[in-house]
């Protein structure tokens, strides 16, 4: 194992982080309206949301990424590898985040809605002041562990040429015939990145728990 | 429903003569400490063979903790437990052999029954016999059916615990403990989780067991059971025995102020 190898793999870290962060932000944002649709009174919206969620969760992430990169890219819409992987993983994340939000909503006591209604709070205030803070708080642990899972899924980006950790490891392994240490280093990097994310989530969880007692 | 008329259960009068003085369980200086909190404070207690002793007292007085020291589900900090020929020092981890022979001699019935929900009633009673005593399935099942009949539940053998009432579950738990032929039975508030009516059927089984000569140590809130079924009553408070003696004397004429206060509070309720 040499320092070159180590540094070579390390140059992929920014791309790994960028793919993960972009896909997560896209998914966390799209997950909200999707969750609202899933719980809507309008049957059509409910069905659309349900089909979306089932479809995106039932087909492998790699295949979705291929669909967006190779599929869309083959004459429909010019798309970069980075955009392709963020779109693919982001849309899958949206489906999963919608379910996480839904689970969190059901964990919020029905009394909170009733109390808001009894206090005659306007509905925007009920959502913004009462429900949203609790929703974020309740969904934080699941969201964080989803983000850690997404970090690992982001390795898929390497298959379509995004120069992330996994891509560099592959490249160096094939050019040096030193696959054993190189992939071990790559695995180590992923683990090292996920540790602080998990720790940060735990810390935030505790801080929020103190503020928004449940 | 079972036939549990108290009169039909007054079968054999208890035969205490001859072995009445032989101690079967001796607790010596049992002490249990959590940090600075003393849960059991150098407690001594002797049970003679065939004796039925009720332990009463306010909650948090250490009654259940004491029972769990006896079979080492929650060992004491120091002290000695002597069951028959087996002497166990609570302060050192017992050998596997000691633990097995202790638990074979001492049966326990829990407040929450703790039946195995994924096994039929019969399997609940038979499995421990097979695994602990090495009985064959056939012998174990035969013994189980006898005991289930004894607690009035022969017809429940092939059902699952979830299909039985709380009182029935507790009677099954008693049969399960008896199946290992213990020398002593410990009861940890066996009726506390039950409606009074269901508690009664459990108490009647316990009464029958007492009459048959089983040595029993019963932590209970049932003052009536303490007074009429047990031979001796122990009142505990703050990890100590504050009063002990023949049941009727202790229940009707306690000597210490603390015991008087407790009994008055219970009776005024």
């Amino acid at each position, binding site marked *: 194992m040499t320092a070159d190898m180590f540094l070579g793999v390390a140059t992929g870290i920014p791309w790994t982080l960028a793919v993960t962060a972009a896909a997560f932000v896209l998914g966390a944002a799209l997950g909200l309206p999707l969750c609202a649709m899933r719980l809507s009174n309008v049957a059509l919206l409910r069905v659309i949301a349900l089909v979306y969620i089932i479809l995106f969760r039932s087909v*492998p992430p790699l295949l979705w990424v291929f669909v967006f990169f*190779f599929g869309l890219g083959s004459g429909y819409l010019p798309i970069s590898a980075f955009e392709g992987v963020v779109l693919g993983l982001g849309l899958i994340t949206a489906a999963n985040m919608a379910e996480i939000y839904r689970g969190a909503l059901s964990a919020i006591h029905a009394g909170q809605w009733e109390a808001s209604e009894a206090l005659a709070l306007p509905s925007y205030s009920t959502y913004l002041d009462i429900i949203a803070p609790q929703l974020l708080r309740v969904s934080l642990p699941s969201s964080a562990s989803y983000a850690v899972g997404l970090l690992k899924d982001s390795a898929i980006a390497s298959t379509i040429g995004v120069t992330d950790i996994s891509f560099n490891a592959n490249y160096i392994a094939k050019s040096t015939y030193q696959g054993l240490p190189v992939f071990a280093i*790559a695995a180590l990097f992923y683990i090292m990145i996920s540790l602080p994310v998990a720790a940060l989530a735990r810390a935030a969880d505790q801080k929020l728990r103190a503020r928004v007692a449940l | 429903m079972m036939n549990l008329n108290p009169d039909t259960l007054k079968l054999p009068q208890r035969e205490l003569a001859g072995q009445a003085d032989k101690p079967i369980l001796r607790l010596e200086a049992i002490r249990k400490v959590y940090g600075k909190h003393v849960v059991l404070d150098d407690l001594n207690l002797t049970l003679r063979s065939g004796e039925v002793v009720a332990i009463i007292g306010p909650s948090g007085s250490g009654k259940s903790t004491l029972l769990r020291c006896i079979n080492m589900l929650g060992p004491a900090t120091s002290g000695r437990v002597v069951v028959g020929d087996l002497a166990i020092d609570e302060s050192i981890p017992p050998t596997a052999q000691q633990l097995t022979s202790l638990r074979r001699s001492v049966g326990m019935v*829990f407040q929450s*029954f703790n039946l195995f929900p994924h096994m039929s009633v019969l399997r609940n009673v038979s499995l421990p016999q097979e695994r*602990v005593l090495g009985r064959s399935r056939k012998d174990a099942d035969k013994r189980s059916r006898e005991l289930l009949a004894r607690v009035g539940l022969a017809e429940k053998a092939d059902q699952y615990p979830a299909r039985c009432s709380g009182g029935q579950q507790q009677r099954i738990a008693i049969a399960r403990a008896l199946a290992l032929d213990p020398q002593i039975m410990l009861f940890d508030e066996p009726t506390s989780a039950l409606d009074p009516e269901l508690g009664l059927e459990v108490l009647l089984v316990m009464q029958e067991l007492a009459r048959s000569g089983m040595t029993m140590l019963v932590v209970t809130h049932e003052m009536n059971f303490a007074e009429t079924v047990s031979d001796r009553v122990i009142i505990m408070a703050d990890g100590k025995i504050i009063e002990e003696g023949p049941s009727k004397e202790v229940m009707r004429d306690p000597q210490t102020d603390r015991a008087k206060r407790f009994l008055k509070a219970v009776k005024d309720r």
Partner: protein
Amino acid sequence: MNDLLSFWLDSLPALLDGLTVSLEVTGVALAIGFPLGLLLALGVQSKARSLNLISLCVVEIGRGAPALVVLQFAYFGLPQAGLTLSSFAAAVFALAWNTGAYTSEIIRAGLESVPIGEIEASSAMGMMRVDTLRFVIIPQGLRVAAPALLGFATQMLQASSLCFAIALPELTSNAYVIGTNTFRYMEILSLAGILYAAICVPATIAVGVLEQRLGKHTR
């Protein structure tokens, strides 16, 4: 439309061959991974320090490293240590490790859901720890874990698509190859997606049904 259908019909045999390989590699990985998960769950709970430490390492690496990297480690890395695996064996190695690591957590949660009172009752009756595990804890724990394990199995089928990276001729690889040859990526990838969904959607629904049914029968 007709054109699409005939393209799909022509490609279907190759994709079905791929799907067979996907199912095979998933099946073997699960058959090794589930028992491994149970062993790891017991190992993580074990009081023996060395056993505990080894189990924790296997679980944490299996969960912490991307399956894709473990897959490449097995296929491109292990030969350097003198262990050359076929792409199928490498896939089984990586996916079984992944399965063991993740299901150990699922199974551990199941084992821990068995009420402490039942375990106390077992030891109060003098049952040995091994017997308590075998007759009381494991049967109930696995029953609780069953829906999540089935759910995980569908994820493993999806994860088997990663074997594309080591040229295992499974569903995604075969679809990709057809795409490269015909340049009709969208059509062929969609068909592959439909095949995955045809298995995963019913399985997901089955998980839901199983969850409900178990909820009804236990207590």
